[in-house]
């Protein structure tokens, strides 16, 4: 009985805070837009009966998504930005995590602290700070002009480059922490054993360090990719009019167009797209847990 209660708590949490809202969104996505409050029909009426209610639902909004190229271009744009950002986050995060794991023992808590430190300020403020850095009169351009590297200010803000910078910066800790955890657990004598058996430093890294930190890499990539895919704040603040990401489209449908059913359909499709990597991530975690037993 106590065990049942213990298991029931997280399930109840998921049911109330995830499944029920999702079903509501799903229902709205199957409804029609209306000039009303809330701006869609039908609403469930006991008097009309369940069947009458369901018969009014249709997939019209999903069909609409396929008719306008904006939507699938936005999905592809998000996918591309999320993938490329994940690669860059890995390329930058892995050496940082490696350096942390190799640092003297007494330094590590400080380094860890420095990685987590940005979370102490609001995410929004940090993204605004990047606007100050990347804008035409921003710190970066001022510095580059002052040092004579460039003569004309670079246009970075309101381009995809700024979005990449923003995403990589924001999600870097999510890459560093799992990779660091994997590297930190690794027995240093494994590298010595590899060298002893004829590996150069580089091959030892490639044949031992990388495979043994694989779980950390996979976890980090998913932790970056999944939220980056639906990212809305960074592209709308740092990106330009040509930055096409599905999060931004979603926001505009909801708040500018007030077309909740189409917005909900966009959200449902996004979720379906993300379910694949989420399930792969879950499997990776599970395999890792099994391997550690």
């Amino acid at each position, binding site marked *: 009985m106590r065990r049942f209660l213990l298991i029931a708590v997280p399930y109840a949490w998921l049911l109330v805070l995830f499944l029920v809202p999702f079903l509501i969104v799903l229902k709205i996505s199957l409804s029609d837009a209306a000039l009303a409050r809330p701006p869609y029909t039908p609403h469930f009426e006991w008097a009309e009966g369940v069947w009458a209610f369901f018969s009014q639902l249709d997939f019209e909004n999903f069909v609409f998504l396929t008719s306008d190229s904006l939507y699938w271009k936005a999905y592809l744009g998000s996918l591309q930005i999320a993938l490329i950002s994940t690669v860059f986050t890995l390329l930058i995060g892995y050496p940082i995590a490696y350096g942390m794991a190799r640092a003297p023992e007494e330094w590590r808590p400080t380094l860890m602290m420095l990685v987590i430190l940005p979370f102490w300020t609001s995410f929004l403020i940090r993204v605004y700070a990047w606007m100050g850095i990347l804008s035409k009169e921003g710190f970066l351009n001022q510095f580059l002009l002052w040092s004579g590297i460039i003569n004309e200010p670079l246009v970075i803000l309101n381009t995809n480059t700024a979005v990449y910078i923003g995403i990589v910066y924001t999600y870097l800790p999510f890459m560093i922490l799992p990779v660091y955890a994997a590297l930190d657990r690794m027995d240093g*004598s494994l590298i010595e054993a590899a*060298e002893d058996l004829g590996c150069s430093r580089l091959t030892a890294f490639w044949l031992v360090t990388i495979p043994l930190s694989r779980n950390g890499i996979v976890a980090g990539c998913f932790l970056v990719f999944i939220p980056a895919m639906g990212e809305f704040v960074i592209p709308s603040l740092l990106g330009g009019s040509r930055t096409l990401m599905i999060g931004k489209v979603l926001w505009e449908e909801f708040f500018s167009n007030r077309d909740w059913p189409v917005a909900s359909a966009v959200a449902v499709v996004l979720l379906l797209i993300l379910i694949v990597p989420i399930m792969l991530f879950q499997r990776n975690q599970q395999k890792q847990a099994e391997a550690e037993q």
Partner: protein
Amino acid sequence: MAANEFAPWEDPQAKPLIRFRNVTKRFGEFTAIDNITLDIYAQEFFALLGPSGCGKTTMMRMLAGFENLTEGVIELDGVDVGNVAPNKRAVNMMFQSYALFPHLTVWENIAFGLRRAKMPAADLTNRVEEMLKLTRLERFSSRKPHQISGGQRQRVALARSLAKAPKLLLLDEPLGALDKKLRQETQFELMDIQEKTGTTFVIVTHDQEEAMTVASRVAVMDEGNLMQVATPDRIYENPNSVYVADFIGDVNLIKGTAKSIGEGQYQINWMESLPPLNAKSSLPLSDGQSCHLAIRPEKVAINAEKPEGAVNAVQGKVLDIAYLGNLSTYYVQLADGTIIKAQTANTRRISRRSFTWEDPVWLSWTATAGVLLES
């Protein structure tokens, strides 16, 4: 010593496989290895023995190439290996933690070094199979290290380090993680494999029993110095210092002053109220020089009556008995409080033991039983 016995260190013509020449290693201010000169010969099973922090692991890591020397030269087969990287040395190491690659199977672990050496596939398969057979691991070849027992992991580590047929195999506390029974079996297995492969083994251990069992020669180390390098029996029977006598096995150390009575015979005055002890020694001790007499407990006889014609005999009473099953160690207290240990084999059942607590007894030993050591 028999002529056919393996003892290259006694042959001045023999060329050593490894030569440490005035090797010093410092870590900052700390001197881990202090000017050591040592020869190790091909096909030896050489043990570096000492308490933790004595420098034995540093010696091994210098041989493997993981530590640079501060001063001196290490030669392997006549070549200075001071600046040769670990992956370029014909030396392999078996790590204390085994350091098996957890993401590879037993088979792949053993093949790892051979693959790096670009061995052709057919030869590689044969070599791995041969190693699996040597270490009786055929049935486990497709398992991952976490799916086999500690003893099996130890054998995988051994097979992996032997696979490349190194000139020299280093073993860092190879049996440390095994329980006692398995350790004893594995000791003989190690010796067997060493003999079969003809590889030179250098083993690091803090377990003197292990060193004595497996090694052809033992180097006893303390604080970065070699205290004594000799065969196990010489280390035990003829320790050259109080440190070695005390470190290896159990010993009674009696402090006194020597007085020569000719022909390598000495009288040791050790207590005013008691007659001097007699000992033979080849040490040139001057009269009145202070010395230690080291006697192993098993060389001290214990009797109820004073034995007739004993060269050395003292009286005391049994203070304590350590019952070890096959042996009993009697802690006998002399009149002045000195405690001398005497060990006897329990050839009779315990209920028929001759002595018990508080019994007055006589301890006796011959003139050659003890070893005279300079203080």
